[in-house]
Every structure is written in C-alpha cells, then in structure tokens.
C-alpha cells in the first residue's frame, strides 16, 4: 500500500491460540496488516472477532497459559517482537508502544494516586528522579486537559470521573512519547459527550506527537471519524482491509455490508433493519471453509469447502471472499441455509 520506509509496524500471519478444556480456540487465526508512521488504523469487529486478542498479542500481553502466540511475526521498525527476550519487550512496552484499555474504571490501580501511576512509567523508561518524574506526570495531566493537574495528580482513581480516568490512562500511555499507541475500545465505557472529548484528545495528541494509533472498536461511527484505514475482523480473521472512507461508501465483503445494514442510523430513517441471520460460530467449532459462509446470503459450495485468502482487489482494498476470485463463476450453489 505504502512505501516500506513508512511502515512502523507490520504484522504477518499472526496466530494466537487459546488452549482450554473445551479445545483449542484460534482466537486470532492468521492475520496480516501494517501500520504507517502517524496514521490511525481501525480494527473493527463484534465480540469474538479476535480484535482485542490481536491488540494484546502485539505487546505480547496474552495471558499464558491458556493463551499462546502460535505463529507469525510482528515487525516493529523492522525487528520481530516475537523473537525478543522478555527484558527487551519490557523496554518497549509503555515506552515505544503503549496501550490504553476499555475500562477506565478498573484499569488504574485503586491504591495509588493518578500522578504516581504516570510517574512510575516515566521513572522506568526515562530514568528520571522522583521529583522530575512527578513534575512530568503533572505536565502530562495538564496536556490531556485535566483541570488543576497538581491537585488531581495526588488523587486516587476513585476520586476521578470515568472520563478523567481515561485521560489519566492516555497521559500514562503518552508520557514516554511512544511511536505506536494501541487503544482498545477507549471510549466504549464512556458517555457519548465524554467519548467525543476523548476521541478529540487522542486525535490532537496524535498530531502533536506524531504517534501512529491502532484503534480497536466495535463502533463503525468511531472508525469513520477517526481512522485512515480499517481492518474488519470476523471470527479471528481479517475479512476486509481498506481505507476507512471506502468501507462506508463502497463496502465489499458480505459481512461488512451486513454490519453496515444492521446499524440503526442516526442520520436516516429505516423501517426495518436488514440483519445478518444466525450468530458467530463457536471458536471451538469453526466451519471448514469461510467462517462467514453459514450466515452469508451469497455463499456457494466453494465457500463451505475452502477458506478464501485476503487478496488485493484494488489499489488500497483487500478482501477475503470467494466472490472476488475467478473461481466464483464456476462455483455451484450451496445447500439450503440454516436459520437462527
């Protein structure tokens, strides 16, 4: 898509599996994408799509056991994170690649002050003294728009509102000027007016710091307003990978289309929502072919037999769907679809 020199992060065929009593769940099942300097990549999907597991895999934060990164590579500035030692990873986490999470209420340690939790990361990575680190933490709080930061820094998380806690998380994540920020559903738990504030803040800081952002979300509206490019995930795979604007004006994959049609729109009246029938397949019992085939209105026999590859169908669009392959014309129709 872009020049290789611009690529800060490149994920190739990443596979993260979970080994449980129920069997092996291929939560992330061979995904590839890249992130350019300073851009925002959205990863969208519904629950069970593997989007959050993807984000945790990037920093090697998958709880193990039961999870394990089973294959692939994560190239950060050309070096594979999967071959690095735990010590090397620690110097990258929170320093060169940071992360913020969905639940601001529970993601901060309840027994330490907001300032201390930010200063801790600064002391660790920038080798500053206690006083300097604290001052820098206060500066960061000011930067993320927290009023009277000197006072707030001394407060514990329970004294802060949800929106303020997420600001603290952002301050902590950006304190060491990371090159990549992974934001896992950063606004899902927040009210819409607060969500608007936080998204605006991330956008501004991203511009000022030149940080590349991976935004994990289920909200297509958020993707549209904040992302440059987007990867749509379904059942552990990327089904469509394209420009963010493109996905709304010209969606390709039947799942993407279904998702957009099921969305109750704020900008138009719909008498009836077009739905995707059925539910996501169980991760322990994946269909043999395309994982969306059982719910797909277009599925033919070939879809149930083999998994389609993610392949380019335009200058900036990749889709994994048999409909966009030469085999499609020759394929025979599938058996009757099953309902709910």
């Amino acid at each position: 898509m872009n020049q290789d020199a611009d690529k800060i992060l490149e994920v190739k065929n990443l596979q993260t599996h979970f080994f449980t009593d129920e069997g092996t769940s291929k939560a992330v099942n061979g995904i590839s994408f890249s992130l350019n300097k300073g851009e925002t990549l959205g990863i969208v999907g519904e629950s069970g799509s593997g989007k959050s597991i993807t984000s945790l895999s990037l920093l090697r934060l998958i709880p193990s056991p039961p999870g394990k990164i089973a294959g692939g590579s994560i190239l950060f500035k050309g070096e594979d994170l999967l071959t690095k030692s735990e010590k090397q990873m620690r110097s990258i986490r929170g320093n060169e690649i940071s992360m913020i999470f969905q639940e601001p209420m529970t993601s901060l340690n309840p027994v330490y002050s907001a300032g201390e939790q930010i200063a801790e990361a600064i002391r660790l990575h920038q080798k500053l003294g206690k006083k300097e680190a604290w001052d820098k933490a206060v500066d960061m709080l000011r930067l993320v728009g927290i009023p009277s930061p000197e006072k707030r820094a001394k407060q514990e998380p329970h004294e802060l509102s949800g929106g303020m806690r997420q600001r603290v998380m952002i301050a902590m994540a950006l304190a060491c000027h990371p090159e990549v920020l992974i934001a896992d559903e950063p606004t899902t738990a927040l009210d819409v007016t607060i969500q608007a504030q936080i998204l605006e803040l991330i956008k501004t800081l991203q511009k000022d710091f030149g940080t590349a952002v991976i935004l994990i979300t289920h909200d297509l509206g958020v993707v549209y307003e904040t992302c440059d490019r987007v990867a749509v995930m379904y059942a552990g795979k990327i089904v469509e990978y394209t420009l963010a604007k493109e996905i709304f004006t010209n969606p390709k994959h039947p799942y993407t289309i279904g998702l957009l049609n099921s969305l109750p729109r704020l900008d138009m009246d719909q008498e009836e929502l077009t739905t995707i029938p059925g539910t996501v397949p169980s991760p322990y019992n994946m269909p043999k072919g395309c994982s969306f085939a059982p719910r797909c209105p277009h599925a033919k026999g070939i879809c149930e037999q083999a998994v389609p590859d993610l392949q380019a169908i335009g200058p900036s669009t990749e889709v994994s769907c048999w409909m966009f392959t030469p085999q499609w014309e020759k394929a025979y129709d599938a058996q009757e679809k099953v309902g709910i």
Partner: protein
Amino acid sequence: MGVPAAEKKVLLKVDQLKQYFPIKGGFFGRTINHVKAVDDITFDIKQGETLSIVGESGCGKSTTGRAILRLDEPTSGSIHFQDRDLLSLGKKEMRRTRKDLQVIFQDPFASLNPRQTIGKILGEALAIQNVVPKENRKSRIEELLGHVGLRPESMERYPHEFSGGQRQRIGIARALAVDPKLIICDEAVSALDVSIQAQVLNLLKSLQRQFDLTFLFISHDLGVVRHISDRVMVMYLGKIVEIADKKSIFEQPQHPYTRALLSAIPVPNPVHERERILLTGDVPSPIDPPNGCRFHTRCPFVQDICKTQLPELKRSAQNHQVACHIVS
C-alpha cells in the same frame, strides 16, 4: 401507527415524579443529603406508541423506569396507568397490575434462573399471573417461543446454552407471557453486538405491531432510539430537557444539550455534515445539582438567567416541548 399520536389514548401518565435516594452519614447515620435521581418530571405515554428516554449515565432514565414499576418507591408524584394511580395501590393490587407492566433488562442472563429450563422459566411466569389454564401452558410456551423466533425444543434447555441475543429473546418471551400492555425496555439491546441487536430490534418492532404493545424504551444509543421510537424524551441530571416526536428531535433539536448529544455521536456518513458542539467537563453530581438550569455549567450558550432560574418545560411547537430559557 396509522392514527396520529394526538388522538391516541393515554396509557401511562407520570406527574411530578420525584425519586430521591437518601445518603446516610454523619455520627448517627442520619440522612445527610439526597441523590436527586429524578427531580419532578411529567410526561405521558400513549397506547401503542414507543416513547424513548435518552440521556447519559446519571440522568435518571433507568430510575424513571424503576419508579414506574415501583421497584423503588418514588418520593412523590403520581403515576397513572389506565387512569389508576399506581402509587396508591396496595401490595396485592400492585401485584395484579404488574401483569400489565413488564420489563426487559440489559442483562437477561442475570434475571434468568440458571437451574431452570426455559420451559420452566416461562411456565412460572404464566403460573404467577395465572393467565393461562395449566393444561394449555405447554402449547402457550411453544407459541411464545415461536413469537420470539426460538425453536420449541429450546424449552428443554438451560439459559447458559443460549447466546446473548437468544437470551434476550427469552427475556422478551417471558415479558410477553402475561399479555402485558406496557413493556419497559431498560437498555435492552445495549449489550448486544450490532448484527444481533438488529435482529432483536426488528423482533420488538414486529411484536409491537402484532400485539398492540406500548414501549417505554430506555437507551443511551441514539441510533437505536431513532430506529424504534415514535417520541423521544431527553433527560439531563434528573430533569426532562426536551420531549418531541422523533422527526423533530432528530431534525430540529432545540435544547443545547440535545444538540450537543446528537452532534457528539460519530456517524459514518460523508453527506451528514454537522457542526459539532463539544461539551467541556463532566456531568455535575446529582447530590448537589447546579442552581437554575441544570445544564448551565456545560452549556455553550449560557446566559445570566440560566444560572438562577430553572427553565420550565414549555411547548415550542406541535408535539415539541423544551426546557430552555434561550430557546423560548
């Protein structure tokens, strides 16, 4: 929906409802203050319509729903359902009336007994209200499952065997079991994925047509609200700031809070150009709400009068009421 809203019969009338929750503290554990969760609101719901309550956390939307069901005993006001004041009913009468008022919660799993089969859960709902003779219950349960799009075999299964969307269908079936008149949906589809949410929303709409149901739909998701409602009521810090029919609230919102709320939601549409009103700060505490207009601390158009005088809810157009000094 063929009959204009104004000509329809009022099913539920809420008048000057207040719901204060005491805060205990001090030396002897006295009540030192109140959370004014709902503070003097008046509205009605007409037969067969869907009224939505929207607002952010702490605005009092769920408390309003709970007060109507008398899950919490309201502090003052009246709630007339079919011309009877629910708050004056005795325990026994209230229990009988509950048959007409059903509720669907956000997390259906929490309200389904994990040790009971779906058949048993629905059978119990039928038995409590005694609407169907015992010998017909099984066929009634099958019928109910059919209404919500579940197979009759589901009867033998347990709640944990179902997905979130299916559980919500079970919750709906249970609400439907007693032929209710009003169903309160408290964030009923909020926890569901978009594709499943759409299925449940379509189901609710078709059931409404089929059984002439009235919905009080409580939600924070304005897209969902636009899809399902006939009228929309916007709440902020325990007060109604605006009530209007769907078309006017989405196309000509008047209250600055409603406008900010609508503009804050990201919409995936390049044609849908809007001016964003970015609110600053957090919602103040409902323990000690601001004087005057509750919204004045965050309002971009604030005037002096807003800081001292509480604006009344006034009719600004046909089917449109708004509580704002600047608009009126």
